[in-house]
């Protein structure tokens, strides 16, 4: 849509008369929102509705389909591969959120100093990995985790004299730790920025008052700092969960597929495999709905739980 579609004739005389002249242009906001309306109908509402229908069909590419009722859902829920994907995704989500949040908060506390010249450099260093896309991080870490030559194993070897031969990406039980390390490196700076902003908005006099009253630093942290940053903690936890449940690109690039014994298969990976490698869009749509329900359920649960103590 070109810019000229929005240009109006000037309404010079009219709005000068009324004090609340916003009301004299009832059409303008709707016109400005037209691109949003159109795109939402075509690429959001319609596909959302259509995904529901599609999930009841067996499809082969975008042109051929047969109605199969609930067979797609029955198939997915009894498929051992989906169980693996679900287990991997949930495990990753729980572990990554529980490691990201304390480490990000610790880094934010570390950097939270007023008038500190080095601060912006450290903030930059910690945030830098976030600029690198998941695919690129995956490619980089697929080499960093190589046995014998990779940076991770060489560092382990030089520090502990063990670990040079650990095959992180060939051993199913080691894939999840490798994935967690890579994602910690990638996302911790992003979460830290939020905690840092929250810490800097705490009223300094509050902490000063607690200190004067003789509270130890740990008590100040527990009773003043933590409650003050609660909304941001909730935000980081909920956003982290939503993002983690949609994990796909990082393990896909890191393991050049789904790994031995599907140890790096996630729900989105499962969807991708069915919808775009086998051409079964119906199963893909059904997995999409299952994932959506999972995300909605998890977010609502977390919001209820995390906001409970707040009056």
């Amino acid at each position, binding site marked *: 849509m070109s810019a000229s579609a929005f240009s109006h004739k000037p309404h*010079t005389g009219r709005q000068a008369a009324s004090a609340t002249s916003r*009301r004299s242009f009832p059409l303008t906001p709707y016109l400005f929102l037209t*691109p949003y309306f159109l795109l939402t109908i075509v690429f*959001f509402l319609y596909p959302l509705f259509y995904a529901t229908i599609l999930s009841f069909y067996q499809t082969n590419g975008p042109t051929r389909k047969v109605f199969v009722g609930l067979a797609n859902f029955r198939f997915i829920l009894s498929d051992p591969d989906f169980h693996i994907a679900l287990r991997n995704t949930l495990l990753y989500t729980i572990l990554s959120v529980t490691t990201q949040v304390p480490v990000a*908060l610790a880094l934010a506390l570390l950097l939270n100093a007023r008038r500190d010249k080095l601060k912006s450099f450290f903030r930059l260093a910690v945030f830098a990995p976030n600029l690198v*896309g998941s695919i690129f991080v995956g490619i980089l870490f697929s080499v960093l985790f190589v046995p014998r030559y990779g940076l991770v194993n060489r560092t382990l070897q030089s520090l502990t004299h063990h670990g040079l031969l650990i095959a992180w990406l060939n051993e199913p039980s080691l894939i999840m730790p490798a994935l967690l390390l890579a994602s910690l490196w990638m996302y911790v700076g992003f979460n830290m920025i939020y905690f840092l902003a929250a810490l800097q908005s705490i009223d300094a006099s509050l902490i000063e008052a607690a200190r004067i009253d003789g509270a130890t630093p740990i008590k100040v942290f527990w009773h003043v700092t933590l409650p003050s940053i609660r909304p941001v903690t909730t935000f980081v936890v909920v956003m982290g969960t939503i993002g983690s449940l949609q994990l796909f690109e990082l393990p896909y690039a890191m393991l050049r597929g789904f790994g031995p014994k599907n140890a790096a298969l996630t729900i989105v990976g499962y969807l991708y495999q069915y919808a775009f490698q086998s051409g079964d869009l119906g199963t893909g749509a059904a997995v999409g709905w299952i994932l959506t329900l999972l995300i909605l359920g998890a977010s609502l649960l977390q919001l209820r739980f995390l906001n409970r103590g707040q009056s």
Partner: protein
Amino acid sequence: MTPLQLTILALIILGLPIAVISARLSRGYYRYLAMIFVAVIMLLPFAWLFCAVIKDKDILNAYTFLPPFRDWSKTTLNLNNFRDLLQPHATMQGPVSFWRYILNSLFLASASTTITLFFSSLSGYALAKFRFPGQRLIMTFMLASMTIPGVVLLAPNFETIYHLGWMDTYKSLLVPGAVSVFGVFLFRQAFLPVPDEIIEAGRIDGCSEFRIYLTLVLPLVRPMIGAFCLIAFLGSWNSFIAPNVFLQSQDKLTLPVILNQYVGEYQQQYGVFLAGTLLAILPPAILFFALQREFISGLTTGAVKQ
């Protein structure tokens, strides 16, 4: 599960002392030591990547970083990885050079950023500076739509794109994402404090509503424009699933898609695809340095304020 538990334990052991130490010694030297330690860990993979791509493939695995200074020469340190990467590759669409993918990605990310910036800010302006029936409903709907994961729309959108005849075109990537709901909210937030008097003055001077938005109001939220440009650019530059699904011709692919292919093609010769990875992370880094200040303040706008 044992290695897993070990990792968790290691992370907690690592994280907690940092928290305690920093809370205790807010002015001590330990704080700087801890900061340096963290910064080194975070930057080490980048340093390693840089060293790996300038080493010759014969000595790639001989040294963790660089060979000792006395061994520096053309045969140990060179740009052969880049030479191999940038030479044209035979594809179904004829020989394609890696430059092509860089240009594709640059074009797509810039076009997508410009389009998304324009439409998202326009919608945000309408929601911030007008009162109209249905406004609350639209905003509630937008918020609700943000909770739906993008992948659920992927399969049905694939059909839509196919029937529109947009497969293998950049339209399939640029049009569906032209309005970012997240961007609409960011811009609404940024436009709210803009005084209404400016808009009134524009109207009295006979500006059209669109010109008021474009020439009077938009320039006032420059920090948000900077922040959003970076967010949109990163989103497009790093996106993998959509280009991988919608683009088919080899000469139209983007960097994440082609590098993921090269990983399979070059297997153990990883200097080549690592060189590509290094080139692929430079443009976002340059943009970030240019927009750093705006970015960090823009990112945290909605999250910290009540």
